[in-house]
């Protein structure tokens, strides 16, 4: 598996990362190197092997249905570049 220049531009767009045209070949090379590296795994025969999700047998931790958090609007918006009355503000997005 490898990616072409168009795919690189598309992935960048989906992630909303500005990638200039002259950066594309370099990123394409890096991504393809990573894919090739990961692709080595396909050499292993995993026929009939259950995917492993944890090294030790673990059950997912669950939480009780109680309100233990919230009421910290000041903290929530503290780092936002633009806020008003505890709302975040972002450049207008309308469908």
């Amino acid at each position, binding site marked *: 598996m490898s990616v072409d220049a168009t795919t690189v531009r598309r992935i960048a767009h989906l992630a909303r990362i500005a990638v200039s045209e002259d950066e594309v070949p370099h990123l394409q090379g890096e991504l393809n190197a990573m894919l090739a590296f990961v692709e080595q795994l396909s050499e292993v025969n995993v026929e009939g092997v259950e995917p492993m*999700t944890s090294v030790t047998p673990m059950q997912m931790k669950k939480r009780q249905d*109680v309100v233990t958090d*919230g009421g910290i609007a000041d903290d929530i918006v503290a780092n936002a570049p633009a806020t*008003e009355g505890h709302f975040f503000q972002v*450049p207008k*997005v309308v469908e």
Partner: protein
Amino acid sequence: MSTATHKLLKGATGDWEMVIGMEIHAQVISNSKLFSGASTTFGGEPNSHVSLVDAAMPGMLPVINEECVRQAVRTGLGLNAKINLRSVFDRKNYFYPDSPQGYQISQYKSPVVGEGEVLIELDGGRSVTIGIERLHLEQDAGKLLHDQSPSMSFVDLNRCGVALMEIVSKPDIRDAEQAKAYVTKLRSILRYLGTCDGDMEKGSLRADVNVSVRRPGGPLGTRCEIKNMNSINFIGQAIEYEARRQIEILEDGGAIEQETRLYDPNKGETRSMRSKEEAHDYRYFPDPDLLPLEFSQEFVDDLKAKLPELPDKKKMRFVADFGLSAYDASVLVAERESAVFYETVLDKLANRARDAKMAANWVINELFGRLNKEGRDITGSPVNAEQLAAIIDLIGEGTISGKIAKDLFEIVWQEGGDPRALVESRGMKQVTDLSAIEKVVDDIIAANPDKAAQVKDKPQSLGWFVGQVMKASGGKANPQSVNDLLKSKLGV
């Protein structure tokens, strides 16, 4: 499926059949969110029901709310669906300000609930089974306000992270009536189960509707998805419009473009949501922050044992045990609150076997009729179940006539009070004392000798005398006694 169960649309070149599938997003009833301890309460000051997890601050990890899992399983059981003891949460990646994570935690390949079915009822006693493809748990998004400023959108994350059940139907729905009946029934089941409040105005229940058209029984056409419908009536209107639009394009030799559309209820039409539809590319992958969701069969069995009686079963019981018509039974079970009210009336009745059917008539005709007239719902009824049961007892035991009962109902509606005491204090008792009625009968016959003479030739004019006697007695005479007395006195 026979064509009798659904409507075909007439085109210039022949009949067309609609194929409809729905994705319903139902907000789970829980105190806290799916993966955080913040409150799910609707509204609230902006960003006040938000934890650092919901705001996707670096290093925060999701921990699943076990009640949300139970609610999903209960719903699956209520839809007669397969419950998957192991399911997986995935990340659905997309970039938008309503989701600070940059992805929605959802379930893609392994949902918590698999195939099930819902029985829907249509006019004229017809019914159709609609298949359920799956149900999965996922996070709701935040809310954007676009009208607060000319250049900025405002973001409130209070709803962000609240648990949703996405319930996906099979493409089994064939017209707008079925689609409306499906949403209505699903909403009713959710409300019986107490897993979603079904409040469409507040957005607790929203539907995405996939519509395509084809020649009856022919190969499937290309579908369009109408997003974010939050009214059952609009769903019906949008489907009708969208199907017509597609037929027009196809009959003009065009092709349907697969796209997302929005319904504009003011204009009564659907329009394309994005001019350049970007193919969905969510790049799903298993969420590395969450282990698979696993639970035991005992966990499921325990929830199943505690499930409330659902509308289909309740309806069958009303018909079997109380002799109600299928129609009356469906009216009573459609809303959970109505069924609860009727069953409370039954509990209070002195003679349930005798009066259960009359109670159904009273709840449906008098009570619902009156409530509808005043635009109230059953929870705001001025006449409570105990009072209505007392009125029905009074009719059943012959203390008051059905006509007087309507007056009594009106008094209780307006003024409240104990119906039995009201009947005493206002002298509304039915007169069964023959000598008292006889006096009235004699007086009326004496005052109308011509009419009395006619009765022998025209027996149907007896009704006029019954009416006069009832009127003279203020409606309190027992109609059967009046009838018997008149017959013997007039010799018919």
